[in-house]
Every structure is written in C-alpha cells, then in structure tokens.
C-alpha cells in the first residue's frame, strides 16, 4: 500500500532538482540506488556477490576443465582416500580420492548461482502468478490456493525435502526440483495479501471503468505496485535456498563425490573432522574451505537482501 503511495506521488521521495522531469519509476530507482551505495554493508554484500559472479563467469579461464564435456566433474589425481593438504599442485588441498578443492570451489560457484538464482526465480514466477490470480479474483479459487499454501506451510521443510529427494532419486537436480516444488507458497501469500489491500483502490477502479481487461489491470496496474514486497522476500531467500540445498547435499542426498558442489564437498569432510593423534587439525582445509565458500556466498546474498529491504520498503526508509 505504502509502496504505491511512493510510486504514484513522486514528491514524497526526495525530489532532487533536475530529476523532476524523469519518469517517477526511474527516479524511484535512482533514489534507491543512492541509498544502497550509502550503506557500507550493502556495498560489502555486492562486492562479495560480484567477485563470486566473476569467478563463475571466468571459471573456464581460472580452472580450465580437463573434461570439457562435463566441466563440473572435478579432476582427480588418484584414488587415495586420505585427503592431501595444500601444496603446489593443489593450492587448497584435495578431497578424499584426490579431487582438487580449488577446482571444486571455482566451478562450485556456478552450481551455487544456479541453485540460488534459478530456484528463487522459479519460486517467484509460480508464486506471484498464483498469488495475483488468487488475490484479484478471490472466491473459490482464492480459497483453494490459500488452503494449498496452508498445507505446504504445515510440513517441516527439510523433512519434506528429504522425503521428496528419496522418492525421485538423489542428486543436485533432484534437490533443485524439490526446492522449486516446495518454496513457492510464501510468495503467493505475500503478494495476495498486498493485492487484497489495493484491489479496490481508486486507480484500479478507474482502470476497470475505462475498460481495461482483467489481465491488463492485474499485471499493468496492480502488480507493479505490489511487486516490491516479493522482490524483497526473493532477495532474502537466495541465501536460505542455498543453505537448504547445501544441507541436503551434506546429508548425502546430493551429487556423488567429485561433482563441483560446495555442499557435497563439505559432506565429504564428515569422516575427516579430527586428524590422526598428534595432529588434530590435519584436515582443516577439508572442513573449513568449502563451508567457508558457502557461508561467504550466503552472507553476500543476505547483505544484498537486507539492502534491498532497506531501499524498497517504505516503512524502513522513513526511519
């Protein structure tokens, strides 16, 4: 509701001179960007994600794949179960069976982006579509959709995800599918409640009176005024999604050993937590490095998500 006020009445936003002739939405964006840059935490978050993004983009240059058909398979130099510490040939050490950790981290960045961004995008599209329909038309359709979200909310997430992965067979693909299937209802709920608030506002009635079609009203008039709430949720969800996927991988429901996925790499550390007598931290690199990559990546997204909330949520911005 308040988002709409800000967008429709641009003078409420800090109307700088020279920006006055700009399109209100563009000016809003500019205002948001300014706020974004002025917060150190958001800049740190952005920096982390940009660095990971570059790493994902230039993965073939940083670590040229040995098997170009399947670059996500980490090359390995033996079958020895005991991990090797960092050395000249393996700058970050190896996993069990001598899979290179550095290669796994670099190519795992791509897996992480696919998991986080693709899953959240899919959730967003499905959730928003259903939420808009439910909120706009109301009635029986709304009731059915909302009860379905109730049911989805009723099942503890990780347990249900485990059950689904068991049924469709483990693997990173299965994990992604499960997260897509299970995570959309929160978007539906939020966008629906936002739409209920503005559905009968004057500008919607005006659009209706001037003969706009349902589709046009929904996606041209209502959605732009409600989308910020779900965008904030989406940006905050990327990190959680990656954590959930990593947790499932860690439990052994992800890919096989040797696939470039951070969660799987931490999972391979489970039997190597404590080193041999006298060197308790002998395998620190195995426990520490892949998990650190996950934590840093998730932290980056969470900082960005916080920033997005601060910038777009009018309730926050007035403070």
């Amino acid at each position, binding site marked *: 509701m308040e988002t709409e006020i800000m967008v429709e009445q641009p003078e409420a936003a800090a109307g700088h001179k020279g920006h006055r002739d700009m399109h209100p939405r563009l000016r809003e964006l500019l205002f948001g960007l300014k706020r974004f840059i002025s917060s150190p935490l958001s800049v740190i978050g952005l920096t982390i994600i940009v660095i990971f993004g570059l790493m994902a983009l230039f993965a073939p240059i940083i670590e040229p794949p040995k098997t170009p058909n399947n670059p996500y398979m980490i090359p390995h130099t033996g079958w020895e179960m005991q991990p090797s510490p960092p050395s000249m040939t393996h700058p970050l050490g190896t996993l069990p069976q001598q899979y290179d950790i550095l290669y796994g981290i670099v190519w795992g960045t791509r897996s992480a982006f696919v998991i986080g961004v693709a899953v959240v995008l899919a959730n967003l599209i499905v959730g928003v579509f259903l939420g808009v329909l439910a909120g706009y038309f109301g009635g029986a359709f709304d009731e059915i959709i909302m*009860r*379905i979200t*109730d*049911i*989805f*909310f*009723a*099942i*503890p*997430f*990780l*347990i*249900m995800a*485990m*059950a*689904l*992965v*068991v*049924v*469709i067979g*483990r693997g990173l693909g299965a994990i992604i599918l499960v997260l897509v299937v299970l995570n959309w209802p929160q978007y539906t709920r939020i966008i629906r409640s936002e739409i209920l608030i503005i559905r009968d506002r004057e500008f919607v009635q005006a659009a209706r009176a001037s003969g706009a079609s349902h589709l046009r009203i929904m996606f041209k008039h209502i959605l732009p005024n409600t989308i910020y709430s779900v965008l904030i949720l989406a940006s905050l969800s990327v*990190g959680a999604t990656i*954590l959930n996927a*990593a*947790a499932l991988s*860690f*439990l*052994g*429901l992800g890919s096989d050993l040797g696939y470039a996925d951070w*969660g799987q790499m*931490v999972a391979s*550390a*489970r039997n190597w*937590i*404590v*080193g041999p007598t006298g060197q*308790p*931290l002998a395998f*620190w690199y195995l*426990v*520490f490095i892949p*998990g*650190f990559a*996950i*934590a840093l990546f*998730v*932290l980056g997204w*969470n*900082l960005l998500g*916080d920033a997005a909330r601060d910038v777009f949520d009018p309730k926050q911005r007035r*403070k």
Partner: protein
Amino acid sequence: MNLLSYIIRRLLLMILVLFGVTFIVFGVMLLLPPGMRVAAFVKSEKITPDQMNAMIKQYGMDQPAPVQYVHWLENMLQGNFGYSSTASAPVLDAFKQYLPVTLELVLYTMPLMIIVGIVLGTIGAVRKDEPADHFTRVFAIVGYSLPTFWLGLLLLMLLYGLLGIFPPGLLSNKLTNVINSPGYHQYTGILTLDAILNWRWPIFLDALYHLFLPVVNLVIIQSATIVRLTRSSMLESLGQDYIRTATAKGVDRKTIIRRHARRNALLPVVTISGVLFATLMGGAVITETIFNRPGIGLWTARAAVLLDVPAVMFNALFLGVVFVVINLVVDLIYAYVDPRVRLT
C-alpha cells in the same frame, strides 16, 4: 467474529490441512514403484521376490490410487506404520526409542534460543546505531548465513579435536553401561530428566556435557531469526504514541521498555514460534547427524540415504501433524491476546 466461532473455524481448517498433509505424503509415496511401497508392511528383512509380489497383491498396491489412499490411511490410523530397515525395528518402536533424544535437544535449545533472541533483539532496538546494536546485527546476519553443518563441524574440530573437550554422542561409555544396568530406571528416555529421577548427578552432568555443543550450535543459528524480528518490532513499538505518552507521564525508561514496548513487540515473535519449531526440526536433523545423537533427525537422515521409505514418510507425516497442531495453538493464543486477529 467472536472467539468461539474463530476457534471452530480454525479447528475445521486444521482438519482440512491435516488431510492435505496426508494427501501430500501419500502422493509423494505414489511416485515410488509398488515394491518399495509394500516395504511399509514388511515386518522383517528377509523376504523373497515371490513373497514380495504376493504382498503387493495382498495389500492392493496394484489398485487405483484413491483405493490405496483409503487403505493406507486405515493402516496409519491403526498404528501400522511398517518396518524401518535402518532401525531394524517396526517404525513405531524405533520412533519411541529415538523421540526422547530429540525432545531433550529441543527442550534445552528452545528456551535458550528464545531468551538469547529476545534479549539481543531488545538491546539492539534500545541502543539503535550504538556499538551494542551493531554487535547484535552482525550476530544475526552471521547466524543467518552460517550453514548449520559447517558451524557444527568447526565446533567439533576445534573443541573436541583440538582441545579434547565436549565429545559427540549422548553419554560417555562408562555411564552408558550404568544407565543400561538393572538398577537404573529409564522413566522417560530423556537422559537428564531420568538422571534426576534416579538421583544420579554424575549422569546428569555428563549428559549436559554432551548436550552443550549441539545446543550451542543450534542456538547460534536459530536465535538469529528472533533477534531480527524482536529488534524490528521493538523499534516499531518504541515509536508509537503510547510510548511517548508514558514518557511524558514520567514513567521510567526501564519500565517503558519492559512493560510498554516489549509486551507488544513480542506478539510477532509468538506468531513465528510455529515456524521456529519447523526450522528447529530441520536443524536437529543436521545437528544430530554431526554430533552423533541417535534421535529422530539422525534416524530420518540415515533412512533418507538408505531409502528406508517407511521411516522417512512416517517422520514427514508425524512432524507435519505436530506442526499443524502447534500452529493452531499459536494462532489461538494469538487471537486471545490480540483481538484484531479474529477479524481477518
């Protein structure tokens, strides 16, 4: 809408949602071939393919889905949950054995994470933009971002591996023998509680010693949500007119924060306690796996990897039902405390 009709409406809705949960769990199982589903009725591990085919016929696994659903539901209601191959026991027996371990973990984690969350959240809001606030915000965002399993592994590596303290497991070997000896009564299966009932303080302390790391691990990660929520709702409630009124009246700051602001600020925290339970169960799966505590979480995790379908499905169903009931209770409390809720 008055409170009574609200309760009735919510109860009816709960029944609907419970059916929905069974639909989903059953629907997920239907994706499996009949041979794997019939495992739910197998009582032992030794079974030939011929017997298997006979059982598929006998239990109607080749019949239309609605018929199977009704049949399955009947079995569930009669307590026939099948046989868990990971536990080498019927699902219900295994469940009774594993439940206390998880309950104990939850019992210690839940109050601690709520207290830590509310205290840090309040401090953050009251001292907004001061160093204390920055600390709570960093704590919250780090707790949000750390993978549960990674923090657990690091704690284990540094404290147990390097310093040799806080070992994984439930009890030290010596005391495990004691609790299995005839003179010791296992009333509840909850180790610390049984130790008190038996008046054996060394066992109580040893159980706490083993609980420490898993609880710390969960509290660090799970209280982050409460910190953020308390902080933002405290900030909102501190900005309200009634706070200004109270200040103008000359009420001292401490009373304002505790009685006027925080009581109202805690309402949103109550609403998410259902959600907290769900994430806590997720966290328990990971934490029990890392710290080698044989509870529901470790059982489900092993069952999922070893394709022990009856165990996984039972736990999904059970936790789903518990969660629905918790959410109902939370909503009713909320409606009682905040009359505005009943209107929607």
